């Protein structure tokens, strides 16, 4: 796994709970606390999963809560700081979400990463359905990411998990980006 994931986790734990707590997480996960998680370095998947597991036990939160918090931190803080250009290309939340698959395609071209794929469809002008395809099955991370993106674009939306591979975005007002489904009757 690329170092950008444990680096973001470290960033989240250190900024919210202090550097000492991160070192405790590392010790709990049997990882050298001085390990340098450079974004493009390669790390063993098992080591990263141990860090995630240790984070939940040290912070006393469930895996879902930790995953959601990680997603929010990634979207609103970490990626916004490292990759501002990805956000600047879009004016609002919906246009950003519709650009995510293209963004991930560029990530695949650049690195050996395997980001998720989103299948987007408007159910109604206030409801966007999101099919989430990922080998890692981290739907809670996806929810946190969407909440983080909404926070970044300062938009008020509800993000609900519908199943292990589906989410919905519910807007308080009809979205101007709504497009009638291709096969609906006029």
């Amino acid at each position, binding site marked *: 796994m690329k170092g950008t994931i444990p680096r973001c986790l470290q960033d989240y734990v250190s900024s919210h709970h202090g550097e000492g707590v991160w070192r405790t997480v590392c010790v709990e996960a049997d990882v050298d606390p001085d390990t340098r998680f*450079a*974004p493009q370095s390669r790390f063993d998947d098992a080591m990263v999963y141990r860090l995630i597991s240790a984070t939940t036990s040290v912070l006393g939160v469930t895996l879902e809560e930790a995953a959601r918090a990680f997603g929010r931190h990634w979207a609103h803080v970490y990626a916004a700081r490292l*990759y501002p*250009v990805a956000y600047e290309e879009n004016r609002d939340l919906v246009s950003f979400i519709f650009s995510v698959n293209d963004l991930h395609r560029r990530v695949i071209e650049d690195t050996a990463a395997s980001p998720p*794929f989103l299948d987007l469809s408007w159910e109604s002008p206030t409801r966007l359905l999101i099919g989430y395809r990922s080998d890692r099955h981290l739907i809670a991370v996806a929810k946190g990411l969407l909440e983080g993106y909404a926070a970044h674009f300062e938009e008020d939306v509800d993000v609900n998990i519908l199943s292990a591979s589906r989410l919905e975005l519910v807007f308080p007002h009809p979205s101007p980006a709504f497009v009638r*489904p291709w*096969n609906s*009757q006029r």
Partner: protein
Amino acid sequence: MTASQHCPIASPREERRLVAIHRHGLLEAGPSPRLNAVVRLAANLLDFPLCRLAIVGSREVVCHAAAGRTPTDSRWPRALTFEDESWGDDKLFVALPRALRTQSVGGLSYEAQFYAAATVFDPHGLPVGVLQLVDDCPRTLTVLQRHALADFARLCESELFADAAPTGTLDAAWLRDPETGVVSRRHFRSELLKASYVTFPRVVCVRIENLHTLESRRGWDAVRRVQRKLTERLEEMVGSNTPIAMNDWASYVFVAPSSWDGRVILQELLMLSQRLACRITLGQQAFVPKIVMGASDAMSPDDDAGRVILEAYRAARFAHQNGHRAVVRSATHAENEQRRSVVLERLERALATRKLSLAVQPKFDRALRPMGGEVLARWIDDELGFVSPGEFIPVAEEHGLIRELGWCIVEGTCRLLSEAKARGSEVPPVAINVSTPQLESFSFAGDLLETLTVYGLTPQDVEIEITESVFSENVEQARRTLESLAEAGMSVYLDDYGTGYSSLSYLKSLPISYLKIDRAFVMELARESDDAAIVEATIAMAHALGISVVAEGVETEEQWRLLCEMGCDVVQGFWCGRPMPFDDFLQVTSREVAACAPKVEEP
């Protein structure tokens, strides 16, 4: 039934389109076994579970041929027009229409996750339908696969409108490319085999190296026009009796005329490449094809035709990689190919285990005071021994490993700097070479700055060196990357200045701090007045733009003196400092002046 009855809201273009469909009876025609064969072939070759040819009427979409789908689903309702879907404009598009979300293949239902389609046109250029590829897992299409899909769509057109285009039947399309008229590869192989019983023919491969760039900038139509023009030129020069085929969309193969024997073939190839490379007008603009050529060894009837074609192709690639216009294959080239494949295999392992080492070549100011260094990758393999960067960097570039190699160097440099600082050493900034693909990545600047933070370094600790090739590719993304890094306080060097694509406007607008004059101009500085004039003018221009100048390849005291007189700011070269291990570099930079300096007073 008129077109307006088909669709009451249709635009004039949509009306013409519907009339065309009606005229050819496309909605009424039943499934065609020949079209089915094309579609099945497309599905198999491109490895898709579902492929179908759909004719888009006003109210419904009719499936004309399909591979993989359940046969009961041959018509489905349609609500929008071509204009709404932009199908008329995009000859090939990759998107996932919501109507295609649920698919049925072999009686099983699944969610479509990838969709690509090429528009099928009638002989007047009106869109009548699409050749669709659908998959149930996320994926992408390579450029070549996209072109293959577009070619299959052309084949479908040939079948659908066989009456309108008598030469466009499926059989003819298999023998000849419908666009350029050259013979198919399959046909070429059989012709080559026949020729091998009469003479010992050589196969010549012609590669157009900049056709991919043209495709990305001007689209497929421009490529087709260039292909047609080059076919004309080739036929004119080698004779229409010689079989010529497209090897892929950016290369041709043909059988060398028997008069081109071993003594004259290279001369003939050079002459041919020169004439093929003449300017081609494309509307208001012109395109100058960059041609390289390769010829195989003479073929005997026992040889495999495919292998001989590949040999010619590899010879052309060898020519490109080594800066030649044409190469005739020999045993040496076969050995080189073998060596490259071994280097590739070992390099992949070395990168995965981060087994490259780093050397640093110091840079000095005019008074020969050390002021930094340039990091250079060194690789000593367990089996191959020392492999020169001139050998492994082109392999990395060719096989998509250049980004990984770049990050390997970045991390290695940061580790060395961080360890030196932890020991309390004073470390001047060191420059890392950054490849164009890295610069074009939207995440490069963020990841680089974060890597520095992770290692406890600042953007002032590291500098980057870019080459002029960045100006020929995705300049805008490269500009954003450079601006982000410069804003953070990182210095940017423009390397190898004078040998590539530099534009004065880029020099003015990009945040470049240093310009490195290529060693080619420095080598003959004392003897060539032209080189001296170029270097002096470059220094004056750079200073006028607020850019400092580094001279590379300084190998004599005389060169250093001349450069100082011309106002050059920084020197780098074997005379003042060879590439050395990082610890030795720290010792050199801890001195006040370079070891070569003491006996010489500053001019």
